[in-house]
């Protein structure tokens, strides 16, 4: 990484209890490294993630927010992740429309068996957000320059 060396982003990861949180545990079991900037919040299902939580994270200084859920078709609650997908498609597109870098948000499907995918996803996401640098934009959205 050439840009922003030394910058440690704050990353919030919402993980569904049944697949992605278990996937994160598996990454731990297999001692697969990913940056400590990632902090996981456990939710029963990705569909529990309210867009307000994401905006709150950004406003409180998060530099990136990632939501992880079961693969489509595998939701423990049968359909929760389908709703998540619609909600996040619209929310992310709106954030992009407001001029917030689209690389700061991500929705990823990680199964309980995909410890390696979890670690790889987090490595990639942290690298991506680190390149962007600090997220001032959402915090400043209503402030005059």
């Amino acid at each position, binding site marked *: 990484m050439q840009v922003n060396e030394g910058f440690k982003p704050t990353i919030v990861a919402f993980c569904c209890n049944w697949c992605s949180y278990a996937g994160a545990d598996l990454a731990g079991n297999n001692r697969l490294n990913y940056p400590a900037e990632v902090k996981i919040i456990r939710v029963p299902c990705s569909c529990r993630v309210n*867009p*307000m939580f994401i*905006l*709150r994270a950004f*406003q*409180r200084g998060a530099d990136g927010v990632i939501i992880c859920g079961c693969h*489509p*078709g595998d939701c423990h609650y049968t*359909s929760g992740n*389908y*709703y998540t*997908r*619609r*909600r*996040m*498609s*619209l*929310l*992310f*597109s*709106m*954030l*992009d*429309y*407001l*001029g*917030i*870098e*689209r690389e700061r*948000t*991500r*929705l990823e499907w990680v199964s309980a068996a995909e410890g390696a995918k979890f670690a790889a996803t987090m490595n990639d996401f942290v690298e991506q957000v680190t390149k962007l640098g600090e997220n001032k*934009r*959402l*915090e*400043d*959205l*209503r*402030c*005059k*320059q």
Partner: protein
Amino acid sequence: MQTVTKEMLIAKAAELLDNGSVTRVFGWQKGEFDYDVTPALFHSAAEMEKDFVWNDFCGANFSKYLIKDKGEGKVLVFLKPCDTYSFNQLLTEHRFDREKVYAVGIPCDGMADIRLIKEEAGEGVTGVDTEGDELVVHTLYDGDIRLNRGDFLAERCKVCKSKKHVAYDELMGDDGEIADSARFDEVAKLEAMSADERFAFWQNELSRCIRCNACRDVCPACSCEKCVFGNPKSGVENKAASDSFEEKMFHIIRAFHVAGRCTDCGECSRVCPQHIPLHLLNRKFIKDIDTFYGEYQAGAEVGSRAPLVDYTEGDIEPSKAVERGGANA
């Protein structure tokens, strides 16, 4: 030029009040000037003769008032075509009792925007009359000024989505058609900007917000019993001074909460004292919904399933959605 006249509306109301079909009437009431129109509840033809008005400034959408309406018998409500979409959407959400309402659909030839008129005519506008395709603006200092009516319509009327009523008990005048409107052009223009330009645009617009809540209070979709921003348990309730979260995220969250339910009536932008183009947030969601999930017009029919409480197994992934949403990277 409105094809149905004020006199015709009063006569219709008088007839319905007389024969006991309704006991009260939601209608527009004139204020200090003809163009200062406010929503009001009338109980007799006499009251209406005195204060009721129907002119090019009757933008107010009465659908939302039906939620809190109470009283014996039915209430008469006049609905312009765009109002009927909110009417249906609120019915879909079980927000009022259809049996308690007598809806009269009235044609609308678009509503004028007094801000644009004042910008053109300058100080001291005392009244505006409509003569054919022209607006006659009466001013204190410059006498009468004649303006081309079409140029001074509200933005939402210039890109009117429908002259067709989707709900009514009775229709006055002729019904129109659903228009192939250019209402997403402004959104597309924003999308064509760079991310930095977009951020600058919104920062400039939203920084003017004084959190007066007028947009929320007028919005038919924003009709919650209690708003999340007033609910201590939501975790976002706080006065603006002590928690900047509420201030900064208010408009984004509000737009998300009404996504899929917003009929694009445009009332939010009409009432904003700071002239923030709030409808551009809602229209972005509508445009995205149309692009991602197929065209959907909230309120077009009662009982339709809103896109955010629905899904298909092959829905677009957010990463692709952001690209297809049309905004510049």
